[in-house]
């Protein structure tokens, strides 16, 4: 930052007063989008692992508990003998009750309703199980048994998450482009407003790069001020959203847990905005002055 006024009186320039607010807004949007993309990335990975990692086997309900237990045991035996199955565990009745609680209320399991049995199957990594064949084999042993690989719903959610990430990247790109355009317009306006001071600097021997440096440093100052304001605003918004999400407590909502590198990337946004603004202003001035005779 300048210890004293630059030679070109850019600090009094009304044409660049909007720049910190504009850059601030852009960094705010970019920070939210980047944070959202990071959260979605984590969630998509979790969902992705769910597709390939687990299968649920649904065992038809039996009128007697002993019969239900026999069916589950028979299927467990079959599953444990199947190559590629890492583990097969029957969901206990209390676990089943907990799953049904949001829909049927507490005590649903003890109400005497015929409930299907569930078996959680963990599949070995890189295994290529033929789920259609497995499903047929299990149905032969216990008619009415169904295998749910979650592939359909999880696949759609993962695809949605990836699309949202791509959209976020596109918007960040557009935001950066708009910021560069604003800096270029501001630098051009500054060149026009301060034509006389610039001519004086040229006549006393200033090179184009010296004059461009003044515009570049001014753009850096304004972008840093706006950028950090935007970042603080974005962090406040993210904290508020995290607090809101805790209140909802939904396991489907993506969690925003950032690694040190991701935090560093987020905190570097104002610095990146400053660097982009400074370079854009510098290049604009050098190119414009270079076209003079």
């Amino acid at each position, binding site marked *: 930052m300048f210890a004293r006024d630059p*030679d070109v*009186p850019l600090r009094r320039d009304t044409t660049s007063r909007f720049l910190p607010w504009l850059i601030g807004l852009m960094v705010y949007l970019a920070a939210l989008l980047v944070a959202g993309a990071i959260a979605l990335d984590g969630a998509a990975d979790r969902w992705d692992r769910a597709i390939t990692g687990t299968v649920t086997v649904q065992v038809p309900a039996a009128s007697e508990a002993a019969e239900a237990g026999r069916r589950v045991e028979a299927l467990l035996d079959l599953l444990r003998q199947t190559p590629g199955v890492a583990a097969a565990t029957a969901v206990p009745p209390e676990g089943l009750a907990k799953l049904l609680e949001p829909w049927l209320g507490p005590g649903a399991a003890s109400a005497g309703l015929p409930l299907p049995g569930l078996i959680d199957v963990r599949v070995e990594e890189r295994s290529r199980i033929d789920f259609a064949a497995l499903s047929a084999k299990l149905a032969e042993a216990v008619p009415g048994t169904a295998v749910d690989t979650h592939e359909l719903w999880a696949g759609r959610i993962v695809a949605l998450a990836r699309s949202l990430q791509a959209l976020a990247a596109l918007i960040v790109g557009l935001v950066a482009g708009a910021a560069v355009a604003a800096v270029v317009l501001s630098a051009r306006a500054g060149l026009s407003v301060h034509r006389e*001071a610039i001519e004086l*600097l*040229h*006549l*006393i*021997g200033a090179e184009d790069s010296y004059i461009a440096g003044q515009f570049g440093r001014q753009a850096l100052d304004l972008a840093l001020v706006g950028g950090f304001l935007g970042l603080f605003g974005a962090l406040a918004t993210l904290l508020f959203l995290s607090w809101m999400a805790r209140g909802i407590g939904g396991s489907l909502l993506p969690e925003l847990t950032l690694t040190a590198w991701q935090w560093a990337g987020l905190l570097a946004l104002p610095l990146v905005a400053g660097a982009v603004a400074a370079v854009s202003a510098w290049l604009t001035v050098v190119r414009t002055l270079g076209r003079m005779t």
Partner: protein
Amino acid sequence: MPRFDAERAAEGWRRLRVVRFENVGMRYGLGSEVLHDVSFHLAPGSFHFLVGNSGAGKSSLLRLMYLGHRPSRGLISILGQDVTALPRSKLPPLRRRIGVVFQDFRLLDHLSVLDNVGLPLRVMGYPRDKIRTHAGELLKWVGLGERMHAPPSTLSGGEKQRVAIARAVITKPSLLLADEPTGNIDDRMGMRLMRLLQELNKMAVTVVVATHNEGLVARFEYPRLRVADGRLGPDPG
């Protein structure tokens, strides 16, 4: 015995010309010519008045000399360099050897008097303490040691003119050009400024003073370049 080399001698003589104009014409944009067939030269350490009525072309001629404009035709050599087709990137080092006192001073109001005077050194990348020392000394020399931290807007016309002179000479230029330096001040102050320019001329600086103040010119014995209707008349000096 060494032989006389006429070509080298002629080249040496040409190099001695601080300013050389040969059949120079000048126009602004696509307008008509404001200077026609101007030819003259200035020897190192000389002092010339550039005289003529307002609008005769004095400022345009000075503008060509301080590399503020390119000629539309002819040849201009400044400090031994042909500037007619000099690339833009080569102009700054040459401009640093030319001091200019503008008619309207061209001081930057947002900077202090000291910073205005130090501006040419700042542009050249001098360290701040050296700039302050040099600029302070020059301001004392022009009698403004007490006003160095004041903004230019608080100075009188004569004071501004002296600040402009201090700024023009801080790089120890070989050529000093002054456009109507006494135009905005009274006679007493005008004479004082002329003495300052004379002092600089004694330090081997080539000085050109453009003025339409014939009374002032008459008080000095220096040669005159007379401009009328965009043409340079005979040099009476």
